């Protein structure tokens, strides 16, 4: 068991080294930074427009940078309904509002983007080595399960690193383009939310690893992984629509529980109440990776 865990750690370490060597890690980090900074700036612009409109209504001079009238904005319907849409549950909005608006947006964006970015990157982890047969170098020195879970762990590390660095991009956007943003408070909120988005993303990294173990074509693996991630969103949409249309039933509930998206609501909970949902998402990832591993241990390399 100890040797097995050591091998998983060694494979994970080499996966990270490989990502750094092949610039994949850098590409992932740049993608996260550009996406979070860009989307953060768009959100700030939107907030600025809303504040300017409110300032005109209240006949007060508008500010150069948004953030000064957040409390006033929240008294209206517009921003509140937007936040309800992001969080997915009106009852959770009040609890979430203890965090800066930009941090809330950061988590919402993370829940949308991390699954796709992470799974696109993870999809070629095994399939690429199957194509070049490079996997054979490791395959006679350690078990196949160790290879799959090592790669998963390596991808988890890469996704976490990219997610953590994206905090910086959003924080800078907040500090530069907004007013009245508590530097430390924003940083802590962003960090807390980033861990949640990462845990959610791990479910999709697991799906991508399973797809990667299915085929020796990296391109196909990526298509499968992104398709699988998109498929879960479609199923989630159907389950939500079904439960709203016909009321909560065992089928819809079961479907929602069986999808990582069904646990997104829990990730918005205050305090440490989000932790169980995060663990469920991680468990999804491990379960999907295990399914891929079952195929991988049986296949010819």
């Amino acid at each position, binding site marked *: 068991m100890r040797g097995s865990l050591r091998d998983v750690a060694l494979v994970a370490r080499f996966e990270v080294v490989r990502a750094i060597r092949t610039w994949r890690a850098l590409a992932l980090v740049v993608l996260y930074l550009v996406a979070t900074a860009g989307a953060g700036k768009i959100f700030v612009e939107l907030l600025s427009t809303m504040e300017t409109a409110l300032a005109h209504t209240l006949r007060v001079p508008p500010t150069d940078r948004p953030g000064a009238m957040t409390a006033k904005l929240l008294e209206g319907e517009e921003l509140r309904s937007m936040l309800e849409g992001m969080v997915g549950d009106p009852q959770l909005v009040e609890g979430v509002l203890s965090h800066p608006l930009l941090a809330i947006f950061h988590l919402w964006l993370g829940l949308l983007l991390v699954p796709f970015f992470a799974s696109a990157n993870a999809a070629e982890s095994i399939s690429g080595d199957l194509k070049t047969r490079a996997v054979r170098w*490791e395959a006679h020195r350690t078990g196949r399960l160790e290879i799959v879970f090592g790669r998963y762990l390596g991808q988890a590390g890469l996704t976490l690193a990219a997610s953590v660095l994206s905090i910086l991009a959003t924080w800078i956007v907040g500090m530069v383009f907004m007013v009245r943003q508590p530097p430390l408070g924003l940083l802590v909120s962003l960090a807390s939310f980033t861990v949640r988005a990462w845990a959610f993303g791990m479910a999709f990294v697991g799906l991508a690893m399973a797809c990667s173990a299915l085929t020796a074509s990296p391109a196909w693996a990526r298509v499968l992984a992104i398709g699988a991630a998109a498929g879960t969103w479609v199923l989630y949409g159907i389950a939500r629509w079904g439960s709203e249309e016909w009321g909560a039933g065992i089928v819809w509930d079961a479907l929602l529980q069986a999808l990582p998206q069904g646990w997104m609501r829990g990730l918005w909970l205050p305090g440490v109440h989000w932790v169980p949902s995060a663990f469920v998402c991680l468990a999804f990832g491990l379960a999907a990776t295990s399914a891929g591993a079952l195929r991988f241990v049986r296949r010819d390399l």
Partner: protein
Amino acid sequence: MSDALRFEGVGKRYGRRLPPALDGLACRFPQGAICGLVGPNGAGKTTAFSLVGGFLRADVGKVEVLGGPFDPFRLKGRLGVLPQDAELGDRHTPHEILAHLARLGGLPRVVAESEADRALESVNLGGDREKRVGALSHGMRRRVAVAAALVGRPELVLLDEPTAGLDPVQAASLRKVLDARRGTCTLVVSSHDLEELERLCDWIVMIDRGRCVRQGTIAEVTGRTQVIEWTLGPGEVPMQELEAALEGHSLRVEDRVLVQRAPDGADLDAASVVVAGALARAGVAIRQVRRGVSLERRFLDDAGKARE
């Protein structure tokens, strides 16, 4: 001598409509020997290696690797394989790859690093340890791959076409590297260069169409203890005199090559003196003498028989 590797009735098929890649392969590779696995393209050499390395699973039969079936944890650090066509990461440095593989072989970090250095030195790539693999020539990459199979001093090393694509100088240098391993581990080498294998190997296994057609020591396979090939100059070979003097020996001339096969237990040295004397008396020049037939000739004969 116990066996480092043994195949017992091993069969492997890649598809129902395809002929079997291995069809009841049964052969052995003795411990501590340098062994050659010989066969034409499609004979099943790479499939056999892949079964040993755990890349494929046999449909039927048993592959015994160092005393048991393939198990990466039982064989940790004891088995090294140079798989055919398996790429090394182009962006990595040779040292990085070898150190990783040595650690996966169970060595602690510091030992693995020095083992990686040692393995690279052994293939004359010590000065290129920090270059990217992608920046190395084909020959150098091949040597890195061989070093990757040898790193960690495994007991059993399988090298699938180690000299493929190497120029004669590089091939000779690699042969020296492998020769230096003689006695320290069991080496199984697959190659199309039969001359190279004949010089290097103690034990030969010949396979064709997934079956073993011959196996034994190099002396047994090439008949070094029983056969002498005399390459002759012009002139009539005194066959009657030779047949009278060497009772029980089989003698035939083919393309100015006299092939002399001695019966079991015959003194081949004494017989060779008789042949040389008779040829000298007949005025037939001796251009070359060779103990045993070449591995290539043996292989072509066996493959021909198998196909008949």
